[in-house]
């Protein structure tokens, strides 16, 4: 279990026993799980993979009203250039060789003061890098000292780039830092009026670490039809909404579990019920998700009516989608969305020929069992990045369509497979079903660029490797 008094979140390895390297059929995976815990593996050849720092920064950059200081060499902060948040102010302490030996706390102090003087943010988040963690720079005392001087929350976020093999630990580190602040210093956190003063409707927290603003909005709209108010956390969190989070009726994940950490803490510390239904992708999963929220809030009847109405609207669209029926798809997404999408594929009539997830943990075992009942030989590949393992699988499975985020889609595109990148689409909720239907059809019929890329020599991998099993470089760690 988690302890909010700790300096930072535990590794996912310790908390959830995740796998970050695995390949085989779903039934062999379940066999291993039934014999005890899933055993973490290592790779003796690896490709680049994101760290907790990268995912943590990506998440922090969506926060409202805050400024970010990355304490480390200049390159550690580069991920923040990806941010679409026009109001984000960020700085990096740019520690050099000398600082890496003597400590960089002077630069950290100066940077925090300057950011405050220039922009008066509601709070400043201080994000640590591998170098300052190894050198044990005393971030805590700088924070304590300047917090008093500046009179705003200074929140240390202890990412380190190496502690966990699962980059999603970065999401936990961010959630831990924010909740520690909210729970320990409610008085100094700026607040808007408590929601109870504005409305009698129940409000819930949508636990989100990777969904887009549009996707969250579509679920908020769905809940609003049931007179349920909601706010996202930690993604897009506004420090002014702190009390909304701590006084929410319950918290619920949008991704089947990756965002679980904050929910666990809110449940343990405040007794807020924490729900982890399947990610609301597809008709059945969205139904389950809505029902799970509506029940404890006494909105079952309204939810049932809404679900029935939405399902009726979708029925004709599903019937009309004859073109895509029987086509083969490969799904490469986080475990929660990937497993929900498998069910949606059944609803549409697609054949799933493989699933790749960045990591997998014990909490997904029941959902995997459900899939295994109808497709026990479904190949499952676990790896964040690590396309070298995927190539051989794609070559033998020969999917017609590859569904993933854009950054992961190039290896498939190089093989001439139609790709459906989800970065710009909202696939959550009932609205997501029709969006997906339209796009699946379009991408299947217009894979011209992919086919062009596939003509000619374009693989970086050796012929020897392409003949080997994807499992070749995955080993059990010798302890």
């Amino acid at each position: 279990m988690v302890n909010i008094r700790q300096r930072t979140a535990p590794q996912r390895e310790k908390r959830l026993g995740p796998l970050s390297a695995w390949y085989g059929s779903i039934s062999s995976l379940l066999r291993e799980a039934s014999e005890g815990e899933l055993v973490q593996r290592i790779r003796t050849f690896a490709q680049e993979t994101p760290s907790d720092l990268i995912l943590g920064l990506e998440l922090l950059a969506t926060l409202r009203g805050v400024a970010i200081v990355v304490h480390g060499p200049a390159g550690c902060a580069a991920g923040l250039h990806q941010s679409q948040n026009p109001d984000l102010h960020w700085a990096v302490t740019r520690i050099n060789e000398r600082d890496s030996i003597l400590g960089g706390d002077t630069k950290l102090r100066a940077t925090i003061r300057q950011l405050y003087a220039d922009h008066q943010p509601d709070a400043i988040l201080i994000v640590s890098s591998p170098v300052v963690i190894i050198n044990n720079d005393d971030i805590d005392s700088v924070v304590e000292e300047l917090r008093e001087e500046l009179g705003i929350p200074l929140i240390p976020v202890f990412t380190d780039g190496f502690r966990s093999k699962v980059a999603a630990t970065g999401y936990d580190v961010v959630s831990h830092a924010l909740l520690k602040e909210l729970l320990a210093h409610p008085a100094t956190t700026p607040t808007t009026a408590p929601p109870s003063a504005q409305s009698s409707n129940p409000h819930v927290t949508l636990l989100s670490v990777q969904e887009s603003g549009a996707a969250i909005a579509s679920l908020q709209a769905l809940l609003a039809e049931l007179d349920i108010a909601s706010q996202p956390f930690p993604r897009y969190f506004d420090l002014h909404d702190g009390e909304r989070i701590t006084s929410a009726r319950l918290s619920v994940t949008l991704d089947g579990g990756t965002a679980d950490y904050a929910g666990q803490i809110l449940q343990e510390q405040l007794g807020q019920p924490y729900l982890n239904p399947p990610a609301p992708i597809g008709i059945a999963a969205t139904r389950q998700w809505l029902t799970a929220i509506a029940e404890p809030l006494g909105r079952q009847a309204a939810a049932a009516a809404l679900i029935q109405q939405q399902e009726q609207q979708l029925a004709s669209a599903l019937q009309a989608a004859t073109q895509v029926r029987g086509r083969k798809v490969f799904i490469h997404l986080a475990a929660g969305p990937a497993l929900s999408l498998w069910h949606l594929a059944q609803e549409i009539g697609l054949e799933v020929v493989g699933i790749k997830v960045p990591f997998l943990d014990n909490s997904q075992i029941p959902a995997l069992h459900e899939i295994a009942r109808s497709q026990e030989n479904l190949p499952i590949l676990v790896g964040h990045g690590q396309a070298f393992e995927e190539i051989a699988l794609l070559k033998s499975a020969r999917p017609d369509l590859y569904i993933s985020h854009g950054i992961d889609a190039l290896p498939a595109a190089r093989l001439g497979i139609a790709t459906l990148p989800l970065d710009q689409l909202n696939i959550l909720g009932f609205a997501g079903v029709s969006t997906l239907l339209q796009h699946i059809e379009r991408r299947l019929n217009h894979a011209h660029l992919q086919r062009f890329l596939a003509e000619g020599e374009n693989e970086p991998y050796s012929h020897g490797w392409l003949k080997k099993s994807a499992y070749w470089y995955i080993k059990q760690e010798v302890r």
Partner: protein
Amino acid sequence: MSSTHYADRNGCALHGVIKVLDAIQGVVPIVHANAGCSLNGRFSANTLNGAIGRYFRSPLEQGATTLFDKHVVFGGTARLREQIKNSVKVLQGDLYVVATGCVPEIIGDDLPAMIKEAREQRFPVLGITSPGFKGNAYAGYAASLKALLVGIDDLFPKEASERTGKRVNLLGLVPEQDPFWEGDLLELEQILASVGLQSNRLLGQGQDVRSWKQARHADLSLVLSPWGHEAADYLESQHQVPILDLGWLPVGSRDAGQLLEQLARRLELNEQQLDTAKRQLDGHQRYYLQKAATTWLSQDLQKRSVIVAPSATAVGLARFLAGTLGHPLPVVVITDDPDESRRDALQHAIHEQSPSSQVWFSSSQQQIAELLRNAVPEFIFASHLEQPTASALHVPLLEIATPVRQSLILQRNYAGVQGALSLVEDFSAAVLQANQAAARTPIATTGVNTQLLASKIWQERRGRGSSNRSSTEPDSPAALSPIAS
């Protein structure tokens, strides 16, 4: 002015090294660092260009040791040994290059020992020590060029010259940190070809380990920025390849012609061929600038401009914009933090064509914002980081420096005459679009001063951090405002 750096634009040494290695066909980088370092390198520059990956590698297909806690505690050399051995089996390549990040440096991993061991097994492997805290991506570029040349001398000492004509090494344009590097190199190759010279671009499409083996047999190294010196000096001292130090990117027919003159002098080229080439460059540029002239004059495209860019681009653009187009340039900011010893030459090169320009050296977003505000420009040539300032000043901005966020750059370039004409096209498009947007605003009909209105909206945006924010601000996505009320 403070020393705090907002939104650092120059990345770290490791990023520069990775960008170089990514741009050579047949080179397989092995990043020896914790997870995330190489991915971060992709984000530091133009996130659109390169997202697809050169030589068919996507951002996540870079081989890397991805060091974890165990390695940090017990050392990462064993992990590196394993990764080198398996890289040779998995990834096709002619040369495998280990680039190390900060963590192996701090924990004291013995890179030379690992390289030696791999070489004993006849793997073509080199190592570059490139911890991020040792400098920015430009410094990483400079260090990696030299390390590659030294390493290739060591690995392939007897490589014979394949030379048929006279050949010039092009040094100093930094992949991705100079967003137009690839097109600029191709354009320079064309210009040099016009006087019968071959180019050794070393980086970009078709450039491979063979190009690097040939660098030592070149007749000259042409240095195009302060970051090309280290490699040029090495080639001169070890292989007697003389240096022509231009120090910046030639933009437009005048500077391209001057470059050809200098090359002709140094390499004893045919006078007549030189004259013809110069006349052609000039004639080409004059023809198209005449074609532009009607629009140029009727839309009054002479703008008081400022430039914010790394050395090569900043000087090259300044000389063309002031010297050929007659743009007043009150301020030029050079952003790549070149060594103090190189700064006078850069300043001098700008002042030759634009004597009244103030030349500043800064990479800090807020210092640059202040310089821009004080300069009262009508147009800004800069990076995406200057966009907020440009919006606040209601001035159009063309992204000509990293980070670039508004366009996908493949081989578009601003070097030579073709590049100068592209620059004129891109600049005009930005001004004309801004003029059209201004014409569409309801100033005439409603009498509302939209500039003031826009400025007010902007100030509200900037003021988001203050305590009196409301959830109905213009830019706050409806998605995220509470639905409760």
